[in-house]
């Protein structure tokens, strides 16, 4: 089927030649492929935005997962910020806390919007609702933020992977953080090329990240990887807006992520057999949660 772009290079080239935002190219492609109207498509994204905002609000009030492994950290972060002595700054920690809030709700089997996956669902909304206070975007700009993340995610999903079982955590939180960085740049007034640079800068720092959930639950270390993913997205966006560029083109960075995922052992791809899941504490927690015996090894 005919698509407008298959690579980030094509996406940027259309945005530049037609002098349009990346979000606009994504909306046009969706209209073309789905044969739905612009209004319908925007209304659906608006509905997803509502889900994201509600998940953050719920998480900031404090939730606990059934296993007891996660919950309450978003509240701790907000309380810490209120004291006014943060080292990394309130905007950054606001993004971190809202990413954590979303993932804590996800772990508690609450309602979230996958961005691009549930395990990585905190980063895109967390950064969006944090930069909102700084950039004062319109509702339309907030919706466009999601379309821009979608445009980059579309390329990653089709040319590499967004599944932890297939490509490790780099494919999930790595993709999410890179997508968010690109959208922050667009919202802050950067060029399409700067969005691509931000994406590359962040993805290069997510390469190799394994998927090793303790007890197979989307909790440890997933929630904290969303926290750091949000932080990296903001720093990467700032770097690109400052004019820093990636020496490796974005599509090659995505290809590298794909190849790393393919060579990653199965124990480190969402099987809960390696990494943090295989630590003595990881195994003990698994045994406690599922009431099974810990192997003597």
């Amino acid at each position, binding site marked *: 089927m005919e698509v407008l772009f298959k690579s980030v290079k094509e996406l940027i080239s259309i945005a530049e030649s037609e002098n349009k935002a990346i979000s606009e190219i994504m909306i046009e492609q969706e209209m073309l492929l789905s044969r739905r109207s612009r209004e319908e498509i925007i209304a*659906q994204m608006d509905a*997803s935005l509502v889900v994201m905002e509600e998940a953050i609000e719920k998480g900031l009030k404090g939730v606990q997962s059934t*296993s007891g492994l996660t919950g309450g950290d978003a509240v701790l972060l907000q309380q810490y910020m209120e004291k006014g002595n943060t080292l990394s700054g309130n905007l950054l920690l606001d993004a971190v806390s809202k990413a954590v809030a979303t993932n804590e709700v996800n772990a508690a089997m609450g309602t979230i919007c996958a961005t*691009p*996956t*549930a395990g990585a669902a905190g980063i895109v909304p967390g950064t969006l609702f944090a930069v909102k206070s700084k950039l004062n975007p319109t509702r339309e700009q907030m919706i466009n933020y999601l379309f821009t993340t979608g445009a980059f995610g579309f390329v990653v999903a089709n040319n590499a992977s*967004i599944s932890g079982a297939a490509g490790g955590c780099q494919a999930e939180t790595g993709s999410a953080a890179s997508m968010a960085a690109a959208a922050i740049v667009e919202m802050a007034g950067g060029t399409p090329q700067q969005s691509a640079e931000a994406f590359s800068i962040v993805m290069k720092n997510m390469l190799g990240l394994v998927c090793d959930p303790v007890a197979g639950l*989307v909790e440890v270390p997933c929630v904290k990887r969303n926290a750091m993913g949000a932080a990296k997205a903001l720093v990467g966006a700032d770097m690109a807006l400052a004019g820093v560029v990636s020496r490796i083109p974005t599509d090659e960075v995505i290809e590298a992520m794909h190849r790393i995922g393919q060579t990653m052992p199965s124990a480190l791809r969402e*099987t809960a057999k390696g990494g943090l899941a295989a630590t003595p504490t990881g195994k003990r927690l698994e045994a406690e949660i599922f009431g099974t015996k810990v192997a003597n090894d």
Partner: protein
Amino acid sequence: MKFRSVFDIIGPVMIGPSSSHTAGAARIGRVARTLFGRQPKWAKVYLYGSFAETYKGHGTDVAIIGGLMDYDTFDERIKTAFEDAAKIGFTYEFIPEEEEMDHPNTAKIVIGDEESVMELTGISIGGGKMEVVELNGFPLRLSGNYPALLVVHQDRAGLIASVANALAKREVNIAHMEVGRKEKGEMALMVIEVDQLIDDDIIGELRALPHITQVSTIAD
């Protein structure tokens, strides 16, 4: 292009905790339910790869059972699917398998009631997307590059033409099509890959055609 819509990336709206292990699993269950055409009385669910290793923690089990009761990915009732199943006398069994499949997240679902039994194998490919790879022993050879429709129908002359006509009327272009049957005049299958995204209207129109047993998307 396995992912065709921006809502494959930003979406689905779903009950946590995992898009591939919860939402994708619910969708596999729901397609099985749709193709079965009614609430099954019992289910045997064979899980492979990462599904087999981590299904309890991800709620893959409740999601599949929820899907088999026609719950969507965002349906809050997924959380109480086991209790809901008990209330309607729907029994189930989960069987984790050691065997390595082509895809790390594979589920084989066997469902049935007094009248018939159906077997479906689905894979969850990430971000909540799924594909059906086998139905009642028929391997569904999908390129994965297009949205795909599965039409279960009676083996009758002219039926393929009527399905093709219905699609043509809506300017839906067929990219690839396969037809198979078990016995002459009995149940037959059409697997149709198309260029456009498939909406509920198209499915509804195909279902209304004579001799069509069931229609579902098998790669969304």
